[in-house]
């Protein structure tokens, strides 16, 4: 049976600790072991429990990274980055440039699919996106996670890995679909990739030719040549999908695309509102249903109704 994302992260962490590196975070050894993504190891093995002082915790891990041990920092909810990120962003990401002291650190931020209220829920990779000195990936498959980790181990930058709990059971790889002449091209990020893949199939049934180009790397955004061609050949342009707010990575990527290709690139992201705890006030990433409705609308099919 193929390995899931969960098992992949667990194995990578185990290997990382066996090499003498460390994993830091809060409540790592608590019930659940961070969604089952950590091996059942303790401080003597390199699994370091920090106190609940989040901002200080981020700084402590920066210090460990400065010592060259490539720590993994687990932040259990992406929304907690608001107070874990300051010293990571202002010190670790600048250290190589200002002092020529690299500070390689892998930050795991874990998103959830709603039901967790105003702060913690969806992806927050845009918090880091504005900073130089960071690389951001959002792996949703086992091979992607391995690739992102290997990239980190061969680099001396700060890495932010934007995870999503809903991907943890996934064991399948996700592949791009590119038509020679498409109606529209979807560029989904993070958990929206699964909904986009589902929507793509349904939209094709409606007679639309829909490309899907999966986005692993959020920063640096490398607009590959075949993607450029796919967008240029798409009659109604493209859509960047993200489960962070629109005003961040998604808009930035869309802007980069539009500067290179004379096509309109829209964004479909979280709604510009706070999330509440209950379903009717939650703020979820675009569902397959929403993507179908919106993409049909962008392509001039106005008859699609909400199912």
């Amino acid at each position, binding site marked *: 049976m193929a390995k899931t994302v969960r098992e992949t992260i667990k194995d990578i962490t185990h290997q990382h600790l066996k090499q003498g590196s*460390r994993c830091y975070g809060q409540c790592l050894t608590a019930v659940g072991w961070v969604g089952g993504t950590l091996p059942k190891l303790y401080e003597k093995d390199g699994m*370091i429990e*920090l*106190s609940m*002082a989040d*901002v*200080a*915790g*981020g*700084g*402590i*891990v*920066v*210090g*460990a*990274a*400065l*010592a060259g*041990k490539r*720590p993994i920092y687990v932040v259990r909810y992406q929304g907690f980055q608001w107070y874990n990120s*300051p*010293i990571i962003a*202002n*010190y670790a990401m*600048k*250290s190589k*440039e*200002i*002092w*020529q*002291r690299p500070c390689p650190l892998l930050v795991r931020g874990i998103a959830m699919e709603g039901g967790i209220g105003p702060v913690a829920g969806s992806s927050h990779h845009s918090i880091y996106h504005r900073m130089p000195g960071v690389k951001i990936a959002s792996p949703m498959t086992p091979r992607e996670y391995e690739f992102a980790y290997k990239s980190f181990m061969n680099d001396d930058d700060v890495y932010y890995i934007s995870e999503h709990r809903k991907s943890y059971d996934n064991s399948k790889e996700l592949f791009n679909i590119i038509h020679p002449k498409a109606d529209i091209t979807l560029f989904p990020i993070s958990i929206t990739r699964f909904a986009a893949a589902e929507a793509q199939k349904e939209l094709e049934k409606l007679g639309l030719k829909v490309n899907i180009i999966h986005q692993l790397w959020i920063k640096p955004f490398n607009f590959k040549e075949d993607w450029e061609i796919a967008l240029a050949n798409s009659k109604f342009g493209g859509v960047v999908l993200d489960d962070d707010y629109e005003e961040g990575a998604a808009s930035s990527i869309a802007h980069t695309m539009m500067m290179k290709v004379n096509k309109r690139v829209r964004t479909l992201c979280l709604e510009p509102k706070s999330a509440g705890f209950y379903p009717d006030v939650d703020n979820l990433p675009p569902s397959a249903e929403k993507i179908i409705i919106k993409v049909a609308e962008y392509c001039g099919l106005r008859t699609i109704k909400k199912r």
Partner: protein
Amino acid sequence: MFKFPIYLSAGQEYISASIAEVMKELNVQPNIFIQHRGHSTYLAFDAPIERLIDELLGRKSGCANGMGGSASIQSKEKNIFGHDGLMGSQVPIAVGHCYQTQHPTIVYMGDASAEEDYVLGALGWASTKRLPILFVVEDNNLSILTEKKVRRNWNMHNVAEAFNMQGLDIEDDPAQIKQALVSVFEKPMLVNINTHRKFWHSGAGIDDENIFDRYQEQMDILGHEASQIHEQTKQMVEQIWQKQLEKQ
């Protein structure tokens, strides 16, 4: 010439000078996490003055590659790590570095940055892990010009004690500093050292003409020999400045 903020240590030099002497006596080369007002620390631990001057001149050959200015100086040769301008961030960073290396570590902060919440969180964790770390609070009683009594009704040495570590409150008298460091690095320790900043928070102006100047006091006590050393040092520094200015 160009303008940028400069954070002078004059008036506070005895703190780092005394600690550096104690380190020499102990034959310890600590990792040092400096604060924004760090010229005295940089020089006391024998980091190269030429590279500090170059840094103040914005040159690539500066100790922070001409990017750090006065506030973010470092010295790789002397294990001095630069400061990023987020007040107090050096404290959790130092704690994490010390935990990872288990090497004797000194971290400097001012009485204002000591109030940062993440400083307090880092103190607590350092105590929990019983790290070989010395926290030095250079307490000039001022955050820019706002006095400590306006900002808080507690003292840092009491906070350290509450975190189960040794906390001391002393003057920047070399003898007191040496005495305070008798058991340094055996376990975490915080020393709040009361001192006086001679110049403005940023820049070389003077807020108070009558401010106590320990350097001058010591000169007065020590007399002629100290004056001679002062003059020789002044000449030496001026010559180095001149040499660096002439360098292209």
